[in-house]
Structure formats: C-alpha cells, structure tokens
C-alpha cells in the first residue's frame, strides 16, 4: 500500500503556469470588434442608364475641400444633414415608382409636408453626395453617418407604427431568431425606405 500522506500532488505550480499564460493573453488581447458603416457599391455597367430623374427628387449634398457643406445650394452644418435628409425622404409629395406596370401610388406612410417641390416618394428620393478629392475622410464619414441615421430613424418610426417595435429591435430579433415573418417585415421596411445614395465623380 502506498503511503496516504504523499498521495496529494502539489498543484501550486500549476497556477503559476496558468498565470503566465493568462498574462500573455491579457497583454496580447485587443478587444476591439471591427465595426463600421456598411455600404454596397453599385455594380459597374457598360450601358449608361437613361433613366430620367426629376430635379426635385434629388437631394444635392456637396462638400468642398474645406469641409464646408452645401445642401440644395444652402450652406449648412453636418448636424443639419439628418434633419434635412429626413424631411426630403419623408416628404411624399407625389406618386411612387410604378411596379410591374401598375401606376405609382402616393406615399400613405410618409409623415412629411407633402411639398410639391420636394421628393415625390421615398422610393424615388435620391441622395447625391458629391465630395471633393481634398475633403477629409472624417467629414465624409460624418455625412454618410448622418444619412444612415436619417434612414434608420425613418425606418424605426414606421416600424413602431406598423409592428410596435423599432427597426433596430427587429434586426436584433432576427439575429437571434431568423424567422420568415421577421424577414418579411424587415424587407418591407427596407423597400418602403430604400437607401438610394449616389456619389458622382469627385470635384478635382
């Protein structure tokens, strides 16, 4: 029989080894999750499209190399972009895009002023962001962020009205539990407020 007193292995040094590894990983860890503003680039086509877009359906945002901002030829601040963009997208002054030969319908979910001189319908509202080559990237991202924020807020408001939950919550739910009905709701909201952003050639 082995002696009972010696049967316990000294585990004290195990902690030292584990601590060593732990400290190594603590030091090398970078906790940052890569996050950012997602964008989808337009596909390249050889055929120039000949779609005629009416001037009032385009919100012109121009930013110059001194990071100064013009929206519809008025000098504004970055913090105004969201409000102006929302006002423009949600205006709903006319008829929407005809789908499958059906005539376009007026926007029945818009909360805008129905100004005949602003955009017809969210599905027609185009935001044009023209930048200068010398604009700083931070400014560019800020504007993109404000535009994104405008769309998100509109979708959130509509989603609350239709489904009682905001768009962000729906997206979160979808991530946890992707069901068909959620997918449909999200797609519906996306179709009602589609992001149409165009970026013309920069000013040289």
């Amino acid at each position, binding site marked *: 029989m082995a002696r009972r007193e010696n049967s316990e292995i000294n*585990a004290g040094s195990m902690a030292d080894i584990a601590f060593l590894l732990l400290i190594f990983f603590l030091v090398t860890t970078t906790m940052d999750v890569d996050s950012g503003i997602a964008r989808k680039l337009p596909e390249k086509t050889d055929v120039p499209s000949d779609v005629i877009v009416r001037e009032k359906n385009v919100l012109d945002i121009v930013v110059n190399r001194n990071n100064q901002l013009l929206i519809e030829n008025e000098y504004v601040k970055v913090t105004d972009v969201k409000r102006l963009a929302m006002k423009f997208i949600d205006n709903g002054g006319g008829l929407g895009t005809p789908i499958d030969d059906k005539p376009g319908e007026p926007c029945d979910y818009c909360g805008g002023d129905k100004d005949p001189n602003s955009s017809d319908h969210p599905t027609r509202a185009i935001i044009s962001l023209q930048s200068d080559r010398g604009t700083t990237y931070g*400014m560019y991202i800020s504007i993109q962020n404000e535009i994104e924020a405008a769309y998100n807020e509109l979708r959130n408001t509509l989603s609350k009205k239709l489904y009682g939950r905001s768009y962000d919550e729906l997206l979160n739910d979808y991530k946890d539990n992707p069901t068909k009905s959620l997918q449909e709701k999200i797609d519906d909201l996306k179709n009602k407020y589609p992001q149409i952003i165009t970026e013309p050639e920069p000013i040289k």
Partner: protein
Amino acid sequence: MSKFKKKKKGLPAISTASLPDIVFMLLFFFMVSTTMRETDLLIKKPALPVASEVKKLELKSLVSTIYVGKSKDTRISGDKIQVNDKIVEVKDIPSFIFSERALRKEDEVKFMTTSIKADKEASVGTILDIKEQLRDINALKISFSTSKGNDLSGNYK
C-alpha cells in the same frame, strides 16, 4: 462508519487546488476573445473616425482589410495604402483582393467584405479611388471602419 472515525482532527491547510481552475477559466476567456494582430502596420496607426450608426462586421474570416493613413516618416506627405504587410499603390488593390479570394472557398467569395480602415485626416480622393478599383473587380461589399460613439465633432475641424 469506521471511515469517519479515522479522520484526523485539526485544521487542514487551505487547498489551493481550485486556484488553477479559476485562472484557467480566465485564461480560456482571454484565449477565446483574443484576436491576434495579423499585420504589422507600416503606416501610422489610422485614427478612425467616429460614427453612431455602425454595424458589426460579421464573419471575420471573410474580411479583407485595407489600411489608409499617413506614412510613419513625417517628411513623406500624402496618403499611403497598406494591405497585408506592404505599402501598395491604388492600382495594386485588385490583385490583393484576388489573392484574398483565392484563399477562400468559391461559394464564400460573394460574402467577402472589404473593410477600409482609414485615418480621419485622409483625403476622400484616395478612398474614392479605392472604391473605384473595388467596383472594377466586383468586390461590392465594403465597410468603412469606424469606432462607435455619438460625438462626431472630432471627425472634422
């Protein structure tokens, strides 16, 4: 019954046997959450702009990153682009994306995202050039890498 009677009296030493367990638990947590930096930055570390409407990048293995920032040498002006471990020109970006695609399975290629980590002082011209190159080779999913925050005033002066 006799087993209990054999037990010695007196205070036993506090067992440190569970200490490794605790430490191992911490260790595993950090091991799992660690992302090793794969590339050494040859440019100055880009100061990312702040944005509030950010989306997390899913599928980290399908992300290829392009860094844009100033050169470490302050005498050299202008934006430098870094992919992998070297500084490249704008025209080299398609070949970088092709080499990234070659590493992935064919059906995963369409989910690949290009993350642009650019300094907030970089000029939009460089970024738009990169975007144009990406469009040319149909790498359409991009993400402008930002840090999350609500105060955007640091992005511009």
